[in-house]
Each structure stands twice: as structure tokens, then as C-alpha cells.
């Protein structure tokens, strides 16, 4: 049966116990084109079996962090100058993209990037290039997570809607049997209902397959609600971290990421002031 997950998931209790299967990013610095420094010593941990979120302003370096982990910096002319990234006893920072995927870490790129000219099913099959397991069975597994997809299997992915494309992109990544899934802004440009649906699905996969997830989000609200632990990044540095619930109640996070006043009421966009309070960590 396809639904059986390899490892019955009971969420790990706390942040304390370090596990072999944690993904750790240790003091990483990244430069593009040898001169543009984007990450200035980033450290974070994705605990095994948990959902970890990474928040931050535009251009903070979130995508860059994911690229550093998944070995996709090189095509962008970027490289890790300092620090290490390790997972399951391997040093990911020394590997290329293919090897990282082999070691069980797969990224769903920002903006979805489905293969536009391939059918939905071919998109998923393209995810099975490393030939783990039986792709027929895997397809069925993905279809149970995303019941909308089977009906579209022969449709060209370029003509599916944004939400469907996000599902295809996640499904495609799952075909490679990852142990850690990196999601880059899955909610980008999606309608609220779809955002909720995507996150529900991610949560479910996380639970059923014991898959660790690192999700980069602008929608802090939904990300914090659906993760166990969170990091906030600005200007290439981690400026804050904590259990998601703790983060959500931090006044700065509230003000700058959740858009609620200290009182707890939602600010109106109509009343934005030109004068802005300075962030405390700056």
C-alpha cells in the first residue's frame, strides 16, 4: 500500500536532542561572482522530522541559503567561502547538486519552475531520475498527497495554474525520496486557500513520511503556524531564532513580519506611516 510510511512519525519532543539526521548549517558565508557577499556566517539546524521555517526580508539571502545547502550555487556563479553544511554524516558543502540529492536533500525551487513543456506526469517522472524505488508506485504515492493531479496527468504543466504548479513541483521533489525537503516560498503568488492547502499537504507529508522540511517564507503567518522551529534572517545573518510559537509572539516579529501592532490588533495598510520604528536587532 502506498500510504505506508517508512517511519511512523511522532514529532520529536524538543530542540535539545541532536540527531544524526539533523541538517546543520555552520557559519556559512557565500559570495556571488567572487565579490558580492550575500551570506555572512549563517548557522541553522533542521531537526530530523521537524518543519523548520526561515523568514526574512527580500534579498536577505534565504534563497541563497537553500542553494548553498542543495549545491545549486555554482550555476549562479556563487560559492561557499567559509563554513560547512552537513547532513547524515556527510559534508554537503563539498558535494555537487546531484550528490546532494543522492544524499537525501532535495530543493523545490523558488517560483516553482515546473517543466513547462512536459506533461504533469512527465514532470513527476523527471524527479525520479536517480532511480530510487519504483516510479510507478511513487507516482501513486504522490497522487494520494495531491488528489488534484491525477486528473491533469497528461496536461502540459505550463498551462496549469500556480497552485497546481506548486503541487507538481513538490511532488516532483518527493519522487527522489528525500529525507530533507527544502521549500522556497511555496506560497509565492498563491491564493490564501491554496496556501493553506499546500501547507496542509506539507505538514501531512512531514508527519507520514517523517520528512524533515526547511521552508523559506514571506508569509510569516502561515509559516510559523505550520512549523516547529523558526529562524529570521536579515542581511545575510540569522538575527533571531526560536520555537515557532515563541517567535510568533515576539514583538518585533509581530510588527515586521506579521503586521500586527503590539496590542495584537492588525494594523491597517491605509495607516502606514512614513516614520518607521527601527528594528531592535539592527
Amino acid at each position: 500500500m502506498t500510504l505506508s510510511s517508512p517511519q511512523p512519525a511522532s514529532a520529536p519532543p524538543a530542540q535539545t536532542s541532536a540527531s544524526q539526521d539533523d541538517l546543520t548549517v555552520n557559519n556559512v558565508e557565500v559570495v556571488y561572482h567572487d565579490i558580492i557577499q550575500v551570506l555572512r556566517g549563517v548557522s541553522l539546524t533542521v531537526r530530523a522530522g521537524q518543519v523548520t521555517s526561515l523568514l526574512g526580508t527580500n534579498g536577505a539571502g534565504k534563497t541563497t541559503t537553500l542553494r548553498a545547502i542543495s549545491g545549486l550555487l555554482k550555476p549562479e556563479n556563487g560559492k561557499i567561502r567559509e563554513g560547512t553544511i552537513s547532513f547524515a554524516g556527510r559534508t554537503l558543502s563539498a558535494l555537487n547538486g546531484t550528490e546532494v540529492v543522492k544524499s537525501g536533500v532535495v530543493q523545490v525551487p523558488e517560483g516553482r519552475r515546473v517543466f513547462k513543456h512536459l506533461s504533469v506526469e512527465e514532470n513527476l517522472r523527471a524527479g525520479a531520475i536517480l532511480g530510487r524505488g519504483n516510479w510507478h508506485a511513487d507516482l501513486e504515492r504522490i497522487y494520494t498527497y495531491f488528489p488534484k493531479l491525477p486528473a491533469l496527468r497528461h496536461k502540459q504543466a505550463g498551462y496549469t495554474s500556480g497552485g497546481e504548479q506548486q503541487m507538481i513541483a513538490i511532488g516532483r521533489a518527493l519522487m527522489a525520496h528525500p529525507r530533507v525537503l527544502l521549500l522556497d516560498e511555496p506560497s509565492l503568488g498563491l491564493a490564501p486557500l491554496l496556501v493553506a492547502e499546500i501547507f496542509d499537504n506539507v505538514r501531512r507529508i512531514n508527519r507520514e513520511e517523517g520528512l524533515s522540511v526547511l521552508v523559506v517564507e514571506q508569509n510569516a503567518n502561515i509559516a510559523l503556524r505550520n512549523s516547529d522551529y523558526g529562524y529570521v534572517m536579515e542581511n545575510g545573518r540569522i538575527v533571531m531564532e526560536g520555537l515557532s510559537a515563541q517567535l510568533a509572539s515576539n514583538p518585533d516579529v509581530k510588527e515586521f513580519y506579521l503586521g500586527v501592532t503590539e496590542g495584537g490588533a492588525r494594523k491597517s495598510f491605509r495607516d502606514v506611516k512614513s516614520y518607521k520604528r527601527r528594528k531592535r536587532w539592527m
Partner: protein
Amino acid sequence: MSQPSAPQLEVQGVTLTFGGLNALTDVSLTVPPGEIVSIIGPNGAGKTSLLNCISGFYHPTRGRITFGQHDLSRAAPNVVTGYGIARAFQNLELFRGLSVVENLLLARHTHLRYGLLDSLVFYGRASRQEAENRAYVERIIDFMELEQHRSHPVGTLAYGIQKRVEVARALTLSPELLLLDEPMAGMNVEEKEDMVRFILDIQREQGVTVVLIEHDMGVVMDISDRVYVLDFGQLIAGGRPEVVSADPRVIEAYTGVAEQKHAVGA
């Protein structure tokens, strides 16, 4: 028909078909001059397609779109722009290799009125007009707070800044109607606030009509004068924001909750 100061945008029974698939079905709506009108709806509902129809990138299979006395239904994009309608794209469509200034100068194309021969000799008319329009561009740069990026190639700018350049460029066209397709996608609350401030200023200070596509219900509810909701290519609701957000069909199709509660935690 009376002639208001700024013309009104009128979409009448527009249907758009892509090989059997109806991206839009019989959509009719009105955008009165000076208002901020938002269009919301699930992904693939046809919002961008509607904007494409207005701005001339697609032509409706059936129906009519007018802007004042201009019929937009069959007009090419550059013609629509000439009527005073500007657009910022959902997926950045900037001239990536050019600097911010050059991007904005391009938006002055229709305001520069000299011929190829003037260009060849570049004396008098061409030279003078170039300088005048350059000054105009600098004012927009000031307004949109893009000074420090002025001469950088836009391709190297951060995503959020590029979005702002996109809006600035549309504004440089001196439009009467501004079409904004998800100008705040991928921004955090703080950055959204900045963008909202620009949009409000554009509307208030320059009297520009704005059509806005946005998924952030907070923004939509706060700043729109009027909201239309699309679902599967059909218009399912339209009216004042608070009325629309309470509409059960909208809740079912789109928002999922009666009012966007920004409460934290599960």
C-alpha cells in the same frame, strides 16, 4: 456619454478562450476614474488574463473593453499604452540589462516626439526633448525612492527593488490608469507597507486610477474602493470591500475564512 475628467474603464461581457479552455467567461466590470479597484481570486482564475485583455496582450474572444471612447478589444499593447494605460507585470518584465534610469527613459518613448531624421542628426529637437524627459524620469526616481539604484542594471537588483522599478516604470508613462499585477508578491509586511504607501500616493497625489491584483487580503481590504472576485474565469462578486469579503461564495472559493484574522499560532 458624458466626458469625465479621466475616462472610465468598462469591461463588457468579455470571454477569452484558449483552445477550448475558458480563461474568462462573460466578465463585465467597471473601473470609475480615480478609484483603487482590486481584483482577487484563486490562482488561474483569470486575473492576469483579464489584465492582458485590457492592456492588449490578449484579445477577448467575445465582448468589448472600452476606456473612454477608445475601444481596447483589438488594440495592440503599444496602442493601449498610448491611450494612457500603464501596466506593471506579475512576473517582472524589466529590461534586465539596462539601468534603472534607462528603463524609465524607455517609458517616455511616446512622449518624445521627433522623427528618425532628428535622431540621425541629433541636434535641436531631439537633444532638447531628451533632456526634458530625463528630468521627468529623475522626478519619478525621487518619488519612488530609487535614487541609490539609479544607474545599476536592474537585473542585479533584489527582487523587491525590481518590483518597485516595475511600478516606477509604469508610472513614468504618466498614465491615467495604472494596472498592477501582484506588485507585492514575495514581500514581507514591512515591504508591503512601503509599496502600499506608493500606491496610495500615486492615486491621491496624481489622481491616477489603479487596478490592483493582490492575494494579500489585508492590503486589498484596506486600500480598495471596490473589489471584484474572479473564480474559474467568472465574476462571482463585486462591490465594496467589506461587502465582498462577507460574501459566502467568496469565502468558499478564495479566502476560506470570513475575515482575515491575523491571529498568530495554530
